[in-house]
């Protein structure tokens, strides 16, 4: 099993959390995981992105020439990463903030109004978890229970309400595709 993801968006949209949660889940399931964030002042106010790789085997190169799947949360990220998806790859587009449509017919594109769905779940800040739910359904990179477990652990300190909202966002994302 090998799974690769690039998640990108504004700082504050929680794209790093997507990659980290997937990595935590992979370790939980005794797989190898690698998480590579963009770092430094280039992130200030601009876009942040991360790469996450999950595998049954020791991970060699942290750099992948093309992304197998990507989540883009804003327009600049869409423009930057849409061309980098490999053939037959999968692109999840936050259509609440991105009006563009992918012109590529060699990849599967999904338009998910993540911010709107997140607002329904309780708050638009969980838009990242909505996307995570959708990706989970499409790519099955982990068991749903494992993702739920790592979300619970990550937000433990924030109290049961926040955890519940994230669970709801995950579920609604799952059902959105």
């Amino acid at each position, binding site marked *: 099993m090998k799974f690769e993801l690039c998640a990108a968006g504004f700082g504050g949209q929680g794209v790093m959390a997507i990659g*980290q949660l997937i*990595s*935590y889940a992979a*370790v939980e399931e*005794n797989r*190898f*995981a*690698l*998480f*590579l*964030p963009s*770092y*430094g002042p280039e992130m200030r106010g601009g876009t942040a992105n991360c790469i996450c790789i999950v595998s049954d085997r*020791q*991970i*060699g*190169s*942290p*750099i*992948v*020439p093309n992304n197998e799947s990507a989540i883009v949360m804003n327009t600049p990220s869409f423009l930057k990463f849409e061309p980098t998806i490999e053939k037959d790859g999968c692109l999840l587009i936050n259509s609440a903030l991105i009006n563009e449509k992918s012109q590529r017919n060699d990849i599967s594109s999904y338009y998910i109004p993540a911010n709107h769905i997140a607002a329904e779940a309780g708050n638009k800040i969980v838009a990242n978890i909505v996307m995570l739910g959708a990706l989970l359904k499409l790519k099955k990179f982990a068991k749903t229970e494992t993702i739920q477990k790592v979300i619970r652990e990550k937000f433990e300190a924030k109290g049961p309400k926040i955890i519940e909202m994230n669970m709801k966002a995950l579920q609604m994302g799952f059902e959105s595709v």
Partner: protein
Amino acid sequence: MGDKILMKGAEVIGEAAIKAGCRLFFGYPITPQNEAPAYMAKRLPEVGGTFVQAESEVAAINMLYGASAAGYRVMTSSSSPGISLMMEGISYCAGSELPVVIVNVMRGGPGLGGIGPSQSDYFQATKGGGHGDYKMITLAPTNLQEQADLMKNAFDLADQYRIPVMVLSDGLLGQIMEAVEFKFDIDPSSLPHKEWAADGRMNRKKHLINSLDLDLDGLERHNEKLQARYRKIEQNEVLCEEYSTDDAKICIVAYGTTARIAKTAVEMLREEGYKVGLVRPITLWPFPVNHLLKSVKNPATESFYVFELNAGQMVEDVQLVVNGTKPIRFYGRMGGNVPSPNEFVEKIKEIY
């Protein structure tokens, strides 16, 4: 895989040092290793240790000098421009035979350069860097598990040989997260007392920590003693991984981040039937001469390809071993750019 925890590379450095019995960290902020001092600032007080943010890297390395002279395991972490500032202090540690551990999370230079991953401090680490005839044991991890494991090697070797040891990491290994397992947990009080430390006379004869010797013959003898020790290290402490080298027509030589990318490239090429192997130095000094010699003498191996994130610094060490018997090619990226395995695959196919 038991108790593996997902951690950031710079934090792995900190936790592994604590587990290796280090309770003293002196450092100064610099990207891309800021998470190491931040981790230590938080974690060391929890285990009775001490973190001090020095006013500069010049001060930090001299704080190491002091703590080491007192007989304690001590470390710092920095990145290229900061390491340059430490060179004087490292030379003093070498001269005064003080065990210290320095982590360099390399970034692109020269000058202020950038913050992307790089391996352009290879010469500085392996050839001395500061003034005088000295050596530093240089350990180059390729993933976070090894980055954790080698921290223990670093402290043990430093103590055993009374020598500065550098862990040569890079921006990528500082910033990624991977799962690691800490295979050791040393109680500092269980470490042997350092008989030579300047920790107060307490009714014994005076101990002197010093690198000055104005007597020409005296200083020469001191240098000879250091050199003898370096020869011993070269004989006993080499670490190297050989991967698919037995029938390799082309032998790649790469270390650290570049090596893990090269390993993926080897796998990709092997799948297509190309006979390619990898020699991965884990100790950059002492350089794995004998490991590489095996490939030099291997009739199957026609040529060598060195991959680095610099302009070809390790190439010189490879040349010394290959000694003109087989062609050596080089491909490198600079400025913080990290190649994908496909770039290496292309390079190999061009000449296969």
